[in-house]
């Protein structure tokens, strides 16, 4: 059976990818940010996941306004890093896990989550920046990755509650899988930020801190946060945080198991326009 060993939460700011790709990680502006992920890179080497389910949002890259899937799972064997307008990031191809992805799609759809199945797509900074932060700059990513894209571009995005339930459905799907696999699930995006209008640059440290506390100790309460609170308190793009609830919903305690262990917690302002938050939660074995 496949099982979730840990969940990882991190922002996915494009400028972080650019800073890494251009060798700026030791500049005073970026150094404190990358220092916050040193532990995480070590931890990744020890955790050795077989597969990562990476929840992220596409930023007008694979999906234009022609089609806007609310939840989309990548079932391809590989995914190319996208050209988002600046040229593609110089990072490795992303290897998928078609068997597990197809299994999750089938199981989760039969649990009434109507996923869109994507057999071909490029992946943007939403997916590659978290991989870079957690794995550094390897010549190949350490394991296959299943891209799981959530619409957070056009309102309404899925409700936090729905995302949290979807995470639970994904965990049940893993329970039914024949092969023994160590799976991590990552929720990415956020934390507070607003990229548009005269209110651009909004950061709400107090709210972010409370969100992290809630996500760890009372995920049901985090899932109950309504959209309007995200927009008002966390900025129009802060609503990306609903994606963290998918990862949180897949943890054992939500299904009656023991509380996860907080292996790492990090918060830094700013990365470009954004408050960066990062958590590693481990399930007990």
């Amino acid at each position, binding site marked *: 059976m496949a099982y979730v060993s840990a969940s990882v939460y991190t922002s996915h*700011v*494009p*400028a972080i990818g*650019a800073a890494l790709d251009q060798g700026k990680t030791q500049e005073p*502006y970026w150094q404190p940010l990358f220092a916050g992920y040193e532990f995480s890179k070590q931890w990744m080497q020890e955790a050795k996941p077989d597969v990562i389910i990476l929840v992220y949002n596409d*930023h*007008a*890259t694979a999906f*234009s*306004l*022609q089609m806007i899937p609310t939840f989309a799972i990548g079932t391809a064997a590989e995914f190319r890093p*996208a*050209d*988002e*307008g*600046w*040229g593609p990031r110089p990072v490795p191809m992303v290897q998928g896990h078609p068997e597990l992805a197809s299994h999750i799609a089938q199981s989760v759809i039969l649990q009434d989550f109507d996923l869109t199945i994507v057999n071909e797509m490029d992946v943007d900074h939403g997916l590659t920046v978290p991989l870079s932060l957690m794995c550094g700059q390897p010549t190949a990513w350490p394991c296959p990755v299943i891209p799981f894209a959530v619409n957070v*571009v*056009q*309102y*309404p995005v899925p409700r936090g509650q729905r995302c949290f339930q979807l995470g639970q459905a994904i965990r049940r799907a893993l329970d039914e899988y024949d092969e023994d696999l160590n799976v991590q699930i990552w929720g990415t995006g956020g934390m*507070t930020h*607003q*990229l*548009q*209008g*005269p*209110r*651009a*640059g*909004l*950061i*709400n*440290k107090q*709210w972010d801190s409370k969100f992290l506390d809630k996500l760890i100790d009372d995920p049901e309460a985090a899932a109950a946060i309504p*959209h*309007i609170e995200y*927009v*008002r*308190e966390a900025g*129009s*793009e802060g609503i990306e945080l609903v994606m963290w609830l998918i990862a949180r919903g897949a943890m054992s305690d939500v299904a009656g198991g023991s509380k996860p262990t907080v292996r790492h917690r990090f918060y830094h*302002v*700013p990365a*470009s*326009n954004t*408050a960066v938050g990062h958590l590693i939660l481990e399930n007990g074995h």
Partner: protein
Amino acid sequence: MALDKPYLDIPGTIIFDAEQSRKGYHLNQFCMSLIKAANRERFKADERAYLDEWPMTEEQKQAVLARDLNWCIRTGGNIYFLAKIGATDGKSFQQMAGSMTGMTEEEYREMMIKGGRSPEGNRYLGEDGDAQAHRQPQGNSHHAQAKEM
């Protein structure tokens, strides 16, 4: 029944909902086309001619030519799509976001380093925060522009 829009009372913010998306469909699809390098070249070679290939409104084309992102957003643009124009111009997300506040690049960068824009006074229309209409535009960028005109 009309769409419920509980977010209309937030200052300095336009939520990209179905209505904005309908209004901005061709504007955003034009932006999307710029993820191809060949299209970026064609756009840079003759912006007006490239824009005329799209069934956008004249106002949307003017907003793009002026690189006025607030104007683009009012006419249905979404920031993730508009970012393709910025990328074509070699601008970062921070430069793009800052350009919507009236601040210079340095002023905006400085605000972010100091912890960003406070939510205080910026949660509801009618409060007194720096994103409220009566306190906009902020910063020196628009003063510099006014002198040039």
